[in-house]
């Protein structure tokens, strides 16, 4: 669903999972309104309140096995869907290296 050029397969997977989980918690009207989510879609455009955002983070932890914000990382600073996916990619590669 992401229209950016993506090369690394794992990157594609992570971003696809992030998009999939976002779509799962949005209501249908919002999904219709937003159209296709891209890496550039602003998180603020999703209209998620803080609890819904927390739900997204919890579901992503289940799906991807990491929570980049468990040590108090700042997701408020992330502006786009791509940046959110990037945080998971970083957390996953940090775990692989550890």
């Amino acid at each position, binding site marked *: 669903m992401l229209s950016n050029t993506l090369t690394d397969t794992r990157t594609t997977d992570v971003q696809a999972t992030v998009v999939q989980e976002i779509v799962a918690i949005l209501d249908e009207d919002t999904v219709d309104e937003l159209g296709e989510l891209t890496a550039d879609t602003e998180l603020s455009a999703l209209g998620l*309140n803080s*609890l819904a955002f*927390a*739900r997204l983070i*919890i*579901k992503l932890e*289940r799906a991807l096995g990491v929570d980049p914000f468990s040590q108090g990382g700042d997701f408020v600073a992330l502006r786009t869907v791509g940046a959110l996916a990037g945080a998971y990619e970083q957390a996953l590669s940090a775990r692989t290296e550890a």
Partner: protein
Amino acid sequence: MSDTTAGVALVSGGSRGLGQTLVTRLLAEGWQVATFSRTAGDFVEQTLKAEPDRFFWTEADLLRPETVRAAGKAAIDRFGRIDLLVNNAGVLEQGLFVTMPPRRAEDLVTANLTSPVVLAQVAARSMVASGGGQIINISSVNAVRGYRGVAAYSAAKAGLDGLTHSLARELGPAGIRVNTVVPGFFDSDMTEGVGPEYRERIQRRTPLGRLGDRAEVADAVLFLASPRAGFVTGQRLVIDGGITC
């Protein structure tokens, strides 16, 4: 919740006392039940044999919150989610506050407040993801009225009340109800060491003139857990024969 069961309950300290009564009653009502304690004991061994598919026990110590977190996660691994958390396990040690070893006072707060907070977080994360649930914290009349010899325990139990109120506000929009059950004095291993004189004094001061029974406290927990209490959150239900009234 799945179609086959009432849901998944996690009851801390289900090996004895009120926890044992809750495990038995929840299983009878069709719940899948996970619990933990420091030791398994006869009840846990028997229930594991009788209900291998619906009952799960693991070892954890309230004095080590990381083991409590692990027990919560193990319950989720086993049953997939948590729909009901009963923060039941507690540790009581009586003694004059001014002469209590500082470490002991800290331990009482860790066991009766820090660990329940940790468990509530594990459970709430599961409930937020699955779209709802409930948390019931077991406090004590010691958190409502002052009693000698239980200062650190009372402080921790009153802390649980604060947890209930704030979580009810924060998690209500996620379909999660959070309440406190406040038992008065009832017979269990915890109160075994209490002398007959003290017992009589409590009975005298209790409008209903007797000690409570675990089943009566369990009734209140099961009521709050049921759809009959579907519009109740952030509340304290006191089951004490009137001693605090």
